[in-house]
């Protein structure tokens, strides 16, 4: 049995761990609200843009001279998985779930005879993916230098991807990112990025719309922006998911620490009582012997 002093030290160390997890939980709760508001604020832009791209895509569909980003390279051999992870840990199983989904997709593609490469956003995915695919990571984008990744970062990522695509480095790109459902559930989802899948057109088809410049040119200008918006959306979802997962994980950790403190305190009190009893017995026995 551990000595009284050891027990006391142990209790103190668990107590300070509990303080840290509690603080992290409260920080995450505050940040989560902000992240959710940001995700909410970005929604009108994304939905309007999807509407416009959808109606334009419906117009140019079936033509061979559509923009490259939409019609693709004509082959689907080489796949690029854009995996969005967080930069910081302490958020439960979030990152391992994302990596698991990425590996699942990669294996499925490889089983179908395609080659797979990875483009990583965020720090936490690098190590586990590198373990399974030592040469698979072609590039990574570091989002840890800025406090909250915004539209500029999304735009930089989109530019890099477009440049790689135009240089013929891959044929199809998929985006794997967490989707924020609630503080308890964030599921990784996979969506095709390039070639851009046309969003369903929801606009009325009856009226004649004038375009300036032509439909093709507008679509050409809008597609990179649409791509950026999707990545931006993924970054916002990631932010909200990270805080949500962190909040839940830290809440559990705080509760576990509390239970542990309770158990240790009982053990500590028992040992103390045992020590006192032993001492008393010794004194009484000594007095009787006289």
């Amino acid at each position: 049995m551990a000595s009284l002093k050891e027990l006391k030290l142990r209790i103190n160390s668990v107590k300070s761990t509990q303080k840290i997890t509690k603080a992290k939980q409260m920080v995450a709760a505050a940040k989560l609200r902000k992240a959710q508001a940001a995700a909410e604020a970005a929604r009108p832009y994304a939905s309007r843009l999807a509407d416009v791209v959808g109606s334009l895509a419906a117009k140019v569909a079936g033509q061979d001279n559509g923009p490259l980003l939409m019609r693709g390279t004509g082959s689907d051999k080489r796949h690029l998985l854009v995996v969005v992870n967080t930069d910081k840990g302490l958020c439960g199983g979030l990152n391992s779930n994302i990596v698991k989904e990425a590996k699942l997709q990669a294996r499925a593609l490889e089983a179908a005879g395609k080659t797979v490469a990875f483009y990583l956003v965020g720090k936490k995915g690098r190590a586990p993916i590198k373990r399974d695919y030592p040469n698979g990571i072609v590039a990574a984008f570091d989002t840890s230098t800025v406090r909250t990744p915004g539209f500029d970062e999304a735009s930089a990522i989109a530019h890099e991807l477009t440049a790689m695509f135009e240089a013929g480095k891959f044929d199809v790109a998929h985006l794997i990112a967490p989707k924020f459902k609630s503080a308890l559930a964030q599921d990784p989802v996979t969506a095709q990025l390039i070639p851009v899948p046309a969003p369903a057109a929801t606009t009325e088809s009856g009226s004649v719309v004038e375009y300036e410049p032509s439909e093709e040119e507008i679509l050409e200008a809008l597609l990179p922006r649409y791509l950026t918006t999707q990545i931006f959306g993924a970054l916002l979802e990631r932010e909200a998911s990270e805080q949500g997962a962190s909040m839940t994980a830290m809440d559990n950790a705080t509760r576990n620490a509390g239970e542990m403190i309770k158990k240790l305190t009982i053990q500590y009190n028992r040992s103390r009582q045992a020590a006192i009893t032993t001492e008393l017995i010794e004194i009484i026995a000594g007095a009787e012997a006289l």
Partner: protein
Amino acid sequence: MSLHFELVTPARLVRSEDVYMVVVPGTEGEFGVLEGHAPFTSTVKDGALKVYRTQGGSPEEIQVQGGFAEVGANGLTVLAEHAEA
């Protein structure tokens, strides 16, 4: 007698209001949008949107970057990457 005007950036909905007229710097020339404009879609070059709240009033200028304008049945919507009033 009023045009519904919305200016949206990725970060937020900047404006959503009823105005008299908006002059948009399209890539192929400026155009003014009044109420009842025919459906029209255009890219916007970096520059200033001029928002006229009332007829003959002085315009409010909003700088936009990386924009795109759409005129539909429910008014004018400008999507821009950056906007500052």
